[in-house]
């Protein structure tokens, strides 16, 4: 028997560049804090650069908020809560939120281009996922604003007051929507902090909030690093902390709020199992595996980073997976044809590279697609590791990059045990043609979200959140109202 037949993807028909234009983008050279409806200079007098990770060019300077700035923001939020927002009828609150949603839709192109410039994610995703979903979240929660009594019958739902919110760098605008929309709908006011590497779309959202005519101080926006976040978490006049980010920081926050009255929701890391049974529609499963791990360069807390393939179809699935990886285009995030964009920051690229080295040292077999990478910027080829086990670090620890660890299994009990054998429990995927198998498995998985024959599907009506060290509390859906209410 000769060499096994191979498909060739090194193409004689290559796509021409199709860049989304950036000419229409209006970015200021410097962004100040948005507090009490005004753009204010930071008391810290400090600014930091935010760069485009695909070109390493500076996009803008952004204010770094210190404790004093955060205090100002909380005071503004409290004032707005006491004097305006808590007195407004729920129907009026809803109108403001609808207005924000519509304005995001109107400026969708601008939002998606800036999101891609600031974060390195491909324009296809920011255009088709991030921005439309962000608008959808505002639309969805706008509808709940005047129906809270129906959402929680025989209760008396009351807002908490000031919500302190901290969002990550992987989906800046979308995470802001997940946080701000339910907080406003339930009658709270907000102090929100963007991530250090991706502050721009949140300040663009401030512009939207301005033009929506939202009363000053209802939403206050600050930027900065860990210390700014700590100032929000530790502020005595904040009633609620909502955090999305790493499990490490989540633990610090959890310690900080002990003994206070602050309500908390934490949406933390994950190491999701994506399980492919032999009876699955394999070609579609392969597409789901790709979507599960390489979506947003793998910077997704619910990424399907642990793949379990039933041993009888291992070779078939891996071969299809490798061929599909070959057709992925890595490069300029602004090109409409790019599948995998830039790694969000130099720091994150370092972490991913470290894990790739760990994988090799542990004796795993690595496969990467063979595409060229741009010279400037931060890049990582889509990567998969076989020959790994539950005891490998690349199987246990969250990498937050385009790196997939592949294991095999024999029986359903075995794969459930292995899938649950993780300190995380955010999400999981299952691929099978048999409905009963799906229900059996999903009921036994310790994961907040389980996708069946699909992966990374998001909808504002659907609750999202984790088990174990992936955090607690739910965002989205009816469940997402609860953490912002006294019932």
């Amino acid at each position, binding site marked *: 028997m000769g060499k096994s*037949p191979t498909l060739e993807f090194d193409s004689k*028909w290559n*796509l*021409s560049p199709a860049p989304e234009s950036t000419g229409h983008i209006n970015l200021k050279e410097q962004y100040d804090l948005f507090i009490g409806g005004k753009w204010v200079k930071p008391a810290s007098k400090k600014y930091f650069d935010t760069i485009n990770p695909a070109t390493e060019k500076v996009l803008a300077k952004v204010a770094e908020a210190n404790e004093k700035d955060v205090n100002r923001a909380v005071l503004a939020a409290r004032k707005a809560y006491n004097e305006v927002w808590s007195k407004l009828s729920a129907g009026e609150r809803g109108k403001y939120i609808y207005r924000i949603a519509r304005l995001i839709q109107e400026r969708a192109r601008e939002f998606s281009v800036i999101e891609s410039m600031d974060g390195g994610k491909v324009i296809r995703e920011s255009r088709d996922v991030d921005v439309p979903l962000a608008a959808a979240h505002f639309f969805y929660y706008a509808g709940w604003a005047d129906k809270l009594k129906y959402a929680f019958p025989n209760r008396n739902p009351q807002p908490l007051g000031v919500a302190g919110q901290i969002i990550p760098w992987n989906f800046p605008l979308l995470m802001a929507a997940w946080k701000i929309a339910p907080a406003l709908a339930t009658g709270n006011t907000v102090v929100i902090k963007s991530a250090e590497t991706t502050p721009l779309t949140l300040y663009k959202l401030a512009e939207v909030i301005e033009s929506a005519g939202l009363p000053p101080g209802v939403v206050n926006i600050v930027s900065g690093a860990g210390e700014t976040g700590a100032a929000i978490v530790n502020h005595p006049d904040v009633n609620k902390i909502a955090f999305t980010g790493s499990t490490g920081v989540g633990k610090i926050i959890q310690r900080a709020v002990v003994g206070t009255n602050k309500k908390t929701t934490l949406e933390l890391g994950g190491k999701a199992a994506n399980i492919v049974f032999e009876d699955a529609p394999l*070609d579609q499963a392969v597409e789901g595996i790709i979507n599960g791990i390489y979506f947003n360069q793998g910077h997704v807390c619910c990424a399907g980073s642990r793949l379990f393939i039933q041993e009888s179809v291992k070779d078939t699935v891996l071969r299809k997976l490798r061929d599909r990886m070959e*057709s992925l285009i890595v490069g300029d995030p602004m090109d409409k044809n790019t599948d995998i964009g830039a790694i969000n920051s130099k720091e994150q690229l370092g972490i991913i590279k470290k894990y790739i080295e760990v994988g090799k040292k542990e004796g795993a077999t690595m496969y990467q697609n063979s595409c060229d990478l741009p010279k400037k910027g931060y890049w990582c080829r889509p990567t998969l590791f076989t020959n790994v086990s539950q005891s490998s670090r690349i199987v246990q620890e969250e990498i937050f990059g385009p790196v997939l660890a592949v294991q095999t299994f024999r029986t359903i009990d075995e794969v459930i045990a292995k899938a649950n054998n993780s300190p995380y429990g955010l999400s999981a995927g299952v691929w099978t043609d048999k409905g009963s198998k799906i229900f059996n498995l999903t009921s036994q998985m310790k994961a907040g979200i389980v996708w069946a024959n699909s992966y990374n599907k998001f909808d504002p009506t659907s609750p999202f959140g984790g088990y174990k060290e992936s955090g607690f509390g739910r965002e989205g859906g009816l469940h997402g109202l609860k953490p912002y209410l006294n019932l």
Partner: protein
Amino acid sequence: MDLVIFAEQQAFMGKSRAPQIPDFRLTPRIDQVGVGERISRITTRSIKSNAKLQGLKMILNMIDLTTLEGADTRGKVSQLCNKAKFLHASNPDLPTVAAVCVYPNFVSQAKKALLGSPINVASVATAFPAGQSSLDVKIADTKLAVDNGADEVDMVISRGRFHQGEYNYVFDEIAAVKEACGSARLKVILETGELGALDKVRRASDIAIYAGADFIKTSTGKISPAATLPVTCVMLEAIRDYFYESGTMIGMKPAGGISNSKLALQYLMLVKETLGDAWLSNQWFRYGASSLANDVLMQIEKQRTGNYQSKDYFSKD
């Protein structure tokens, strides 16, 4: 396309193994939603400038220019053959179409008209389009086409038998027609618009491929829906699995409903990303279409001159 070269290529590949015939009741399952998702990645590909021009020229070269009407006459067929030879007089550097596709009784006429050109003559056969006849009649129909000089035969499968679960019958029928084809290449039409589900499309594809099809083809053009991107995706995946298994390449022909360049480019992108470079030639990929050629010509002229021209500058045959 030269059949000798084709045979040599197959021999040259040298890695062909005869794969075991699978149990067709157990063909891979297809998830319709998942296929839709794959297609949405294809349709959002932006195919511009050079890539577009190159793609359009490939498409032109992959078209089976088709007339399959009860009202076909010698005059109509002769006009179609002329069109195939002289697509667009003002741009003589263009590639020709791959073949003209006619009913068996027009094959010898078409053959004569295209003599000396690289254009093949394809003929439908086997009681096209319904396929509701006996095997003897279908074999006779095939022989008529082949004896008249057809380079390619487009047969239809027995969809009724397929729905009755008689997969062996369908298989044997295809194998018998393949034998009757001799050296003519056999395209097997599944008529996917009558199969009802993508699972069935996959099953019919596997039956056709294992029974000896050189090409699998979506539709007759007489049933709606005809070719669609999801159906083509599933058929291309069947071809890919067979290639993995045996090293043997099978061709693909979506037919019917592909009337504009944009859609045709999306099909080409689907082929490129599913099967890779080797399939990007009229040896392995065809479009069954009648009005596509003019739209492709118009787009090529737009790329060349920068302006859209009136439809009246493109001949309607």
